[in-house]
């Protein structure tokens, strides 16, 4: 196995060129700092991100754009695209500019799993030209994974659809993490109120799929439902990849619930809703899901079994629609992408915009047309967002990263097929809705 000598030379050259390339890209990104007036990028914590004149501002997205939950991530990505479109103040399908620079989206996949948060987060964190990241779609990808990886580099991660309560719990909150989606504590409370008060049910079963999102909702639901005087007959769990839930549903039927609350993702939601009809002991038992289930795929996969199920998800707060922007936005969405496939595109739009506002506050424009954004200052600025008029309401960011309407969050419950997403009815109205603030929901 003697290799000729030139082989060694070629290998060496290859290795050297890799090293050189590595150094070069470092210079291209992190270097050029110190261009700012008051900020010394070489000493300030987490440094700065700098764009030369004419270079686009690069924004990462870490959303679920493949697999069964692609309907969720694609929908949020559309919201981000519309936000870029709206930078110039109008929806005209041509991107606008932010402080004199174009905006370029680097779209990564969060796979709706820890693995995606890890790989996508690492990829974005290692790119020094990424100004901030919009994501993740699924709480599993963010919680302890992407929020930490990006936070360690001083990159803000702002999610349009993470709802797990733990993400903004003071004990586990990463200082660079924010979200415009509602904290699940509110949704769990509203679902419990709806089931107990509106439907008058006293017994319910819950099924989660081990994701922080579903586990957070079901455990929150159990707490609030039992506070009201109801009983959770059984707390079950599934593997989201499993197609066969009949044995599970049969064993749940033995506990005689009046409703099954399964805030998971499709196809599990759809398959459970469908297979429930085949279980003798579950005649007349209702199925209820939350925003993870409420996607266009639910209608396709559940077929006629979708009718008569309940879905909860956040509604735009009444205050948010004052600006008249909501109508323009909805029209632009429909024109450019068709009917929404999930419920979080408005949250994604707002997430991008509060970041853009923060950039306007802290970015330093050089005389040569360059742009310097100090990372720590950007984070501080976005956390100071107060009374921002967004599509989902008047947003204020609090120190644990919840950027929502602090006045009250409006959660609606829909009786299918009346659901305002593709496959349902675009003009559907909720059969129940309740406004709560986070502190009200937590009862503190």
């Amino acid at each position, binding site marked *: 196995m003697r290799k000729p000598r030139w082989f060694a030379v070629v290998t060496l050259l290859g290795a050297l060129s890799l090293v050189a390339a590595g150094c070069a890209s470092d210079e291209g990104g992190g270097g050029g700092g110190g261009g700012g007036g008051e900020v010394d990028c070489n000493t300030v914590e987490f440094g700065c991100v700098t764009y030369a004149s004419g270079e686009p501002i690069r924004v990462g997205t870490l959303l679920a754009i493949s*697999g*069964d939950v692609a309907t969720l991530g694609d929908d949020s990505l559309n919201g981000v695209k519309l936000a870029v479109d709206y930078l110039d103040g109008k929806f005209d399908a041509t991107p606008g500019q932010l402080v004199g620079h174009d905006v370029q989206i680097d779209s990564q996949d969060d796979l709706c799993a820890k693995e995606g948060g890890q790989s996508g987060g690492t990829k974005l964190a290692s790119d020094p030209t990424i100004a901030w990241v919009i994501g993740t779609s699924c709480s599993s990808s963010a919680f302890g994974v992407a929020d930490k990886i990006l936070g360690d580099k001083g990159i803000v991660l702002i999610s349009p659809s993470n709802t797990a309560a733990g993400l903004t719990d003071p004990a586990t909150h990463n200082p660079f993490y924010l979200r415009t989606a509602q904290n699940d504590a509110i949704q769990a409370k509203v679902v419990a109120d709806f089931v107990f008060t509106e439907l008058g049910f006293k017994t319910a079963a819950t099924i989660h799929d081990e994701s922080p999102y579903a586990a957070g909702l079901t455990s929150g639901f159990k707490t609030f439902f039992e506070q009201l005087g109801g009983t959770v007959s059984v707390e079950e*769990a599934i593997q989201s990849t499993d197609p066969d839930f009949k044995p599970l549903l*049969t*064993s749940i039927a033995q506990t005689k619930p009046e409703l099954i609350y399964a805030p998971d993702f499709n196809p599990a939601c759809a398959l459970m809703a*469908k297979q429930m009809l085949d279980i003798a002991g579950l005649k007349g038992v209702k199925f209820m899901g939350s925003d993870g289930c409420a996607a266009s795929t639910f209608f396709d*996969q559940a077929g006629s079994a979708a009718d008569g199920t309940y879905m909860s998800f956040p509604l735009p707060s009444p205050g948010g629609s004052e600006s008249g922007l909501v109508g323009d936005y909805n029209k632009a969405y429909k024109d450019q992408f068709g009917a929404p496939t999930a419920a979080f595109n408005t949250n994604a739009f707002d997430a991008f915009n509060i970041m853009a506002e923060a950039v306007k506050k802290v970015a330093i424009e050089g005389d040569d047309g360059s742009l310097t954004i100090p990372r720590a200052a950007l984070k501080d600025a976005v956390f100071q967002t107060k009374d921002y008029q967004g599509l989902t309401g008047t947003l204020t960011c609090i120190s644990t990263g919840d950027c929502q309407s602090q006045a009250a969050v409006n959660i609606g419950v829909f009786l299918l097929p009346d659901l305002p997403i593709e496959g349902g009815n675009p003009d559907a109205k909720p059969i129940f809705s309740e406004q709560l603030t986070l502190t009200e929901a937590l009862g503190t």
Partner: protein
Amino acid sequence: MATEAQGAAVGRLARFPVRRAVQWVLGIGILVGAAYAAYRTLSLGLFSAAAWRDLVVFGVAQGAIYALIALGYTMVYGILRMINFAHGEVFMWGAFVSYFVARTLQNSGFMQSSPYVAIVILLVAAIAGSIGVAVLLERVAYRPLRNAPRLVPLITAIGASLFLQNTARGFFGPQTRGYPVPDVLGGTWTILGVPILRTQAIVIVVALVVMIALTLFVSRTKTGKSIRAVAEDKDIASLMGIDVDRVVVTTFVIGGMLAGVAAVLFVMVFQVVGPFMGFVLGIKAFTAAVLGGIGSIAGAALGGLILGLLESVAPSLFLTGLHIPGPNQLKDVIAFAILVLVLIFRPGGLLGTGEAEKV
């Protein structure tokens, strides 16, 4: 004299079945534990008799699907001593081909006007799709490597599996889609006083018929005889004038056919198709084949049945009484733990030759 006695002692010691003793203690311990857990569950009285009956029926129906796919693994293994990991994808492609036919039939209204003809058409489409992929797979990925070391086709099989999976993903999109089925499949039939879902009854009957037909084919026909001859010894069989290539292709055709039937049965029960549906199901079916004894047709059927029953009944039976939260989530743990146990006692599987074979 002394050395002779010493030698005998050493021999006795060497023969002392420590391994077997450990096995027996382990086995008895597990059986006692399982019996205790089952007793606890039953004494709680949470489950009605009807519920247990339903769980058994669900398990048998799921097991029948596993068995049909497992037969494909087992037959290819019997002939080529190779594990065709892409078999789950053969199943998935059959399901997808019939999905597009089903959509067309649904849109034209044919599915509702003559549902039984439609089911036959879907079956033919799925079988054609699966056979096509299986034969192509054999020709492109496996035949050139027929005489390569045994690890090579194994790796190729995994590669082929990923290729087929991601091709489907590229063509049809990553999401799971709803599969339209005729309304006549909804509802239940009452058989011997027991209400059974129509789809499940069909699955069990079709799987039974197909397996009986396969057994007759292999044992009674000339082609079946040549398949057995090649399984016994490829080289001698070819010396006896058997066209080995043809027999191998026939085996893949049969495997594809069974996968196609399984695909239609699966979509009738679950009414969804997706590019990754074959992967987990393929692993389960492979497990069933190993459990029953890979290479044995009856073993694949038995293994599928046992795996289906375990997944359906075992979590409720063994875990509810012990108050373990979320028992049904652990169904795979139980099923695979039992696989390991069976292999400790019978390395060749339940109906296998009793001899472990290196892959």
